[in-house]
Every structure is written in structure tokens, then in C-alpha cells.
């Protein structure tokens, strides 16, 4: 197995999800290649560090905080738009872009029609 092939499989190797046949070939390569062994070690350490990080936990009881808005949604009184402000902004941009395309198409068709009628007139 070449170094680049081994490195492509290091994530699965680290997670012990490789097929036995592939795992044996990776082990065989790592036994003789210092660079790939270092790469595998560093990757395993990095993954281990991430996995030992504690969860980010909210510091307050979110249910108490959010329940009034949930109640408003259930009763149909929530006036907040379903999509956040950012999504609305994206939709406005999309709408403008779409409008511009339609306008450009209309102008294009209209110009073509005029040119065709002019051509017919001169012909």
C-alpha cells in the first residue's frame, strides 16, 4: 500500500471501522513507514482530544426561558417570522436576483422581436 492510500484510510483505521483486510495492510505499512506512523499518531491524538472535550451546556433552564414563545407558537400568536432575519435577507436577495433575470429575459425577447420585425420590414 502506498503512503497516500494509507493516509486516506487513517480516519477509519483510528475508529476501527476498516475491513480486516484493509486494516492488516495499513498495519503492515505503518510498521515500516515512520512518516505515516507519525501522521496516524497525531490524528489519533487530535481525535482523542476532541472526544474528551466536555459538552457546552446552557447555564440556565432553557425550558423556562423559551416556554412563553413555544406557547405563542402553539396558540398561533407568535408574530416572529418562521425564518430568521438572515434567511429573510437571503430570500430578498434571491427575489431581486430572480426579478432581474425575468426583466433581462423580457428585454431580450422584446429586443429580438423588434429586430425581427425590422429585418422583415427592410427585407
Amino acid at each position, binding site marked *: 500500500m502506498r503512503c497516500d492510500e494509507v493516509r486516506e484510510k487513517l480516519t477509519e483505521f483510528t475508529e476501527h471501522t476498516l475491513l480486516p483486510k484493509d486494516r492488516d495492510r495499513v498495519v503492515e505499512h505503518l510498521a515500516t513507514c515512520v512518516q505515516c506512523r507519525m501522521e496516524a499518531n497525531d*490524528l489519533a491524538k*487530535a481525535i482523542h482530544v476532541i472526544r474528551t472535550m466536555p*459538552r457546552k451546556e446552557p447555564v440556565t433552564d*432553557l425550558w423556562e426561558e423559551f416556554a412563553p414563545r*413555544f406557547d405563542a407558537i402553539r396558540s398561533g400568536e407568535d408574530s416572529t417570522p418562521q425564518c*430568521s432575519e*438572515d434567511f429573510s435577507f437571503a430570500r430578498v436577495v434571491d427575489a431581486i436576483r430572480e426579478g432581474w433575470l425575468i426583466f433581462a429575459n423580457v428585454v431580450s425577447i422584446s429586443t429580438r422581436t423588434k429586430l425581427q420585425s425590422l429585418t422583415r420590414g427592410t427585407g
Partner: protein
Amino acid sequence: MNDAEMSAAGVSAASALQYDTDHELVRQYLAGDSHAFEILFRKYQSPIFNLVNRMVGGEDAYDLTQDVFCNALRAIHSFRGDSKFSTWLYSIAKNVCLNRIRTRSTRREESLDEMYEVVNPGMEIADASPSPQSIAEVHELQDVVDKVLETLTPDQRLMIILRDFEQLSYEEIGDITGASLPNVKSRLHRARLAFKNKFAPYIPLIREDVL
């Protein structure tokens, strides 16, 4: 999904139990039991808050967590039940986060461009990642991990959060991101390599007993 289908899909007994419980709670909520939603909320508030917080770097995490559950509440009638409730909820959280990051990065680029044009015309923006010296001094591994995560692309961050923080299966990540299994594996591998490369300077500084 019946037992045979679950078995064929490789769903474990514990996972199947959770699957049934969540679906039952959704069913109860739709039948008029509002307490069922509170149970679902309390069950998933922590993983969703964690996902949101790490995706957006802590900024606006509370508001966005609220948005995730509000969107879920509004759309719960359309929850078809052909996937796990948790997967469905993570998908909503993913969309809320990516949407915020997209807009924030646009605004930030604009404001940074303006600022640097005024203060330092023509100069590069300094790298905000911590130096190896700083981790040696403060030993704040968690801060370093957070900062390195922030330097990854949103997709890379998402893959690492779903797999390594939330420990979801490749199949669940595929459902959440709409990607095929090989694509999930490939993206996760790229994400971990990116993290490892940026984290590499700090590895020798971490005590062996931490690892």
C-alpha cells in the same frame, strides 16, 4: 418501521427504543399533549445547544437554540417519522447554524473590509489562532480546541461536531447532511485532517496524562 426493517437497517436495540420513544412523544404531542414536547425539548436541549454553540462559536447560541426548537415546533406536523426524531432535529439545527454563519460572514467581511481599508490600507488581517506559547502558559486546552474549530470551514466543523462530539453514526450524519455514506466518510476525514494540521503545534505541549 417494523422490527425486521430496523434489523435490516442495522438499528441497535437501544437506538430502536429511543426511536420508538421519540416517535411516541411526537404522536402524543400531535394528539394534544403539550407536555410531550417539553420532554423532547429537555432530552435534546443539551446536544442541540452544544451543536449550535460550537458551530457559531458561542455567539448567539441561546437565540439560535430557541430558533431550532421553534422551527421544530412549527414543522412538527410535517415530521413524517421515517427518520429518527433526533436526526430531523439536528437537520433543523444544521440549517439554522449554516444560515447564521453565511449571513454573519457576509456582514463580517464587509465590516472588516471597511475597517482595514480605513486603519491599515493594503495590510493582511492577522491570524487570530492562539500561539503555541499561549497554550503552554494558560493550559486551556478547551479554549485552544474551540479556537482551532473556529478556523475550520462550517462543513468541517459540522462533521467533527456530529461525529466526535455527538458521536453520531455515519448513517445518521448522512441523513442530517443529505450525503452518501462514502461522502460522509470522505468529508469527515478531510475535516479531521484539517483539525489535526491546525492543532499539530499544540500536541507536544499537552501532557501525556491528558491524552
